């Protein structure tokens, strides 16, 4: 990966809907070169997915998210990886991180209701053999996600014409 690749990734990370021709113009590149590079970045899974950040709450769709601290006993050979995999294979699980500090694995779960989430933790997560304990924290309000402040769209407050 070189400087051009990095610049392409930076642009796409911020706005995945940019067109090849726009990227090409902004980076002073040939459009086919951009296309080829993006394809390669996709194949190498440096670009993992193009997605949209949606404010479901505003869309009137009630969802419940919870951050779960999981303490586990690491396994000989695979450490935390196999346990993490057992957890992240569940589609309800949105994010899984291995953490330093007082617990080991951080799991973000989304469900329709609190009950559904709690049930999932009790039946699926807590019952994994290596899991020593869990602490569930429900998300009450999302202020900022993936670097984006959800509510405030800073309007353009400038005068339309100025010297």
């Amino acid at each position, binding site marked *: 990966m070189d400087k051009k690749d990095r610049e392409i990734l930076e642009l796409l990370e911020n706005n995945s809907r940019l067109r090849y021709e726009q990227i090409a*113009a*902004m980076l002073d590149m040939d459009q086919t070169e951009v296309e080829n590079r993006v394809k390669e970045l996709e194949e190498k899974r440096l670009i993992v997915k193009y997605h949209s950040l949606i404010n479901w709450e505003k869309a009137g769709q009630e969802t419940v998210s919870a951050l779960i601290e999981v303490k586990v006993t690491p396994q000989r050979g695979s450490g935390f990886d196999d346990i993490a995999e057992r957890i992240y294979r569940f589609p309800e699980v949105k994010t899984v991180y291995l953490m330093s500090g007082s617990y080991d694995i951080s799991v973000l779960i989304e469900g329709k209701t609190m009950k559904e989430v709690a049930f999932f933790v009790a039946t699926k997560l807590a019952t994994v053999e290596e899991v020593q304990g869990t602490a569930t924290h429900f998300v009450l309000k999302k202020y900022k996600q993936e670097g984006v402040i959800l509510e405030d769209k800073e309007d353009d407050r*400038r005068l*339309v*014409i*100025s010297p």
Partner: protein
Amino acid sequence: MINWTDKLSPQVKSIPPSGIRRFFDLVSEMKGVISLGVGEPDFVTPWHVREACIYSLEKGYTMYTSNWGLLELREEIARHLYNNYKVAYEPRNEVLVTVGVSEGMDLALRALLAPGDEVLVPEPCYVSYAPCTSMAGGTPVPILTSAENDFRVTAAEIKEKITPKTKVIILSYPNNPTGATISREELMEIAKVVKKHDLVVISDEIYDKLTYEGEHTCFASLPAMKNRTILLNGFSKAYAMTGWRLGYACGHPEVIAHMTKIHQYTMLCAPVTAQMAALEALQNGTDEMLKMVAEYDRRRKLVLKGFSEIGLSCFEPKGAFYAFPSIKNTGLSSEEFAERLLMEAKVATVPGSVFGVNGQGHIRCSYAASVENLTEAIDRMDKFLKKLSFCGEEACG
């Protein structure tokens, strides 16, 4: 009833109203306009700067400062100029904190000019230079730089306009409205003329950080030029701080003291809240500033490519955030073109003629706008240009 016409200063009356004003009124009444007419960043001031200002308010920084500005800020400005350009200013008597470059320009001209003194103003340029010169009692002498030379003023063009009354020349690179930058070599040639004719240079370098190709040369950093130069700069553009109204002037202690005399009676000092914020910007703002610069550069390339694809000829601007394409082949004047582009395609630009007679035949397009808006604006301009050439002159109006 009082007759104001009799009361008002004839000198101020003689200054024509700004050409931008009429356009502003036109645009303000319209909806759905994409504006490329804005002369300021589309970023808000970075949060760490705003936060530092809030903190300063909480701590009770609400008083006057020294007329010169906070010493700590002047020291930081001096350090910054030294690190960037190796020009060493003494913070105690060679740096004055002003209310923007706008005030700095006014102070410099008023501190220098006696009635009849001539000020060379290379045009096209920022709109305030000539009026401020007149209001300070001087006579602005435009130098009409040529489009062929991308509107960079040359030593020869300067020489031609020098008379025994010439006292000052205003330089402004990177330039508003053209986006032109100037090389060290070209400035060296100018410096020779300046020295030979014993001129003072007021160098408005507010866009210095917004230089995309090559390096910006600070005029005061040229050999023997520091003592002849009043360097003006500020926080408006690089740090996205236009509304804070903060800038600075640097120069020889004698002229800075003279400027400070005017400043102390007319302004007292620059607002302390803005000074505290500026301190934070200089100390911790480089990373975010460079990110903004990189972003402008991408948009610059996007706009240039877009213009060339729709057949709008434009020399490559290498600084600031303006492109200054020529619209001469449409047969319309700048004003007609900009007005019709606004009315028929809902894209606001500024007619080049506002910035000097030789800006005629050009429009100023600011690319301090989002990528989506720039792309949409270029699309609209494309359709507009096609309609123009399809209709010919008489058929459509």
